[in-house]
């Protein structure tokens, strides 16, 4: 075959294939320019100083959102970080020291709170850190960051997960194929498979509550005000004021996800 024929053939085939594609109407420019956002952008503010690790938020979330209570998956969780004065990780027995500078855990996602100084380092393995060895220690509430650029949505092959106009990422349980690409795509580990529905599941800021003007279950159940939800488009919202005027941090900004859960008193050791 001559090269010219080959090229001609290839171009013809590509051009031919392009015609039916344009008939599919996957992208409708009209809707692209449709009302972009309203006057709401839900955001979250978590204060790691105020959080005492009681875990009432995790308990409330599981009950509110019908996430099987005893299953080891959760929409929100609380992490504990204990940093030692020598900057070293405590490990049990003679395991090779992996050398992270942190001791951290989140047993059962913190659902039952943190009632012991023992830190979980694996299935049924614990280490205890003496009070005098601690240089810093605190709790960090975690939940979906409802990113502005959610990588989980970008990678969904079927349009089963999406960002709403008010910034919350939802999952369509009737359309999700359960490939798990979104679970792999989330750098924060907030997604999992719902044991009953067998589809991707995640925190959605209690969408049924916030859309009725209520607070999320975790915010409402927190006795310490460590968790707050607000509307970033409302300049008078107390959460907006803190985010706009206070020193807040976000998690893993290096991924370009533009996370919308803001943290007060965030530490460099937080993962």
């Amino acid at each position, binding site marked *: 075959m001559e090269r010219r024929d080959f090229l001609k053939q290839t171009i013809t085939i590509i051009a031919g294939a392009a015609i039916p594609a344009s008939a599919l109407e996957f992208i409708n420019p009209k809707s692209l320019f449709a009302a*972009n956002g309203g006057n709401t952008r839900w955001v979250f503010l978590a204060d790691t100083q105020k959080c*005492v690790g009681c875990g009432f938020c995790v308990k409330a979330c599981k009950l509110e959102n019908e996430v099987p209570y005893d299953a080891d998956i959760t929409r929100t969780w609380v992490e504990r970080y204990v940093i030692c004065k020598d900057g070293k990780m405590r490990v049990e027995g003679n395991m090779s020291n992996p050398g992270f500078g942190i001791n951290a855990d989140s047993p059962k996602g913190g659902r039952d709170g*943190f009632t012991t100084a023992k830190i979980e380092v694996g299935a049924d393995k614990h280490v205890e850190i003496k009070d005098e060895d601690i240089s810093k220690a605190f709790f960090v509430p975690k939940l979906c960051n409802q990113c502005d650029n959610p990588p989980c949505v970008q990678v969904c092959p079927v349009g089963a997960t999406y960002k709403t106009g008010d910034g919350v990422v*939802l999952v369509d*349980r009737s359309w999700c194929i359960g490939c798990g690409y979104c679970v792999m795509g989330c750098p924060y580990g907030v997604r999992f498979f719902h044991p009953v529905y067998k589809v991707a599941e995640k925190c959605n800021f209690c969408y049924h509550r916030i859309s009725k003007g209520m607070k999320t279950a975790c915010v409402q159940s927190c006795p310490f005000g460590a968790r707050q939800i607000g509307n970033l488009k409302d300049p008078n919202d107390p959460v907006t004021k803190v985010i706009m005027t206070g020193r807040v941090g976000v998690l893993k900004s290096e991924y370009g996800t533009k996370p919308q859960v803001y943290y007060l008193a965030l530490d460099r050791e937080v993962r």
Partner: protein
Amino acid sequence: MSHVWRPLFVALALVAGILIFRAFYVPKEFGIGEAGYMYGWHNPNNEQYWKDIKVKFQGSAYCKDCHSKNFTYIRNTPHAIIPCEDCHGPGMDHPGKIAKLPIDINRLLCLRCHAILKYPNSDRGKIRGINPATHQDPNVECVTCHDPHNPNLGALKKSGQRFPTYKLEAGAPEGKSAGGAKK
């Protein structure tokens, strides 16, 4: 036309078949939402699905009218910050389907905050805590001595008794007249 095009016709027929099936199968609302094609490609009907999820936790204000005595009683104590439903469970279906909410009086409930952890960078370190293993009798529920609605340690100490002021029947639901709150 040459026979070499026949496989192409088969392929085109297949593509047409898929497109026809697609026209019937995909909900017609499916499309690009407010967030654009990258982040908003979805069936908009699904948003309603999530809005329709049943609300379980009602908030403490929901308890105010019927349980006004306890509601005001706890206001002036350090436990005022704790929402009713944290210990009493979600108020959904109460008082309708569920006449009395079960109260969690398990020791572990109190230990969520009061197991001592001297963490310097958390308000947990400021909460008065106990060592669960050594504080009094580990098999006795906290509410045997402590009134959860008024954890007044001063009064407790003054009485000098081992199991002094407070008594709450294990598992007994709180009555409308707030039987749990005794002075």
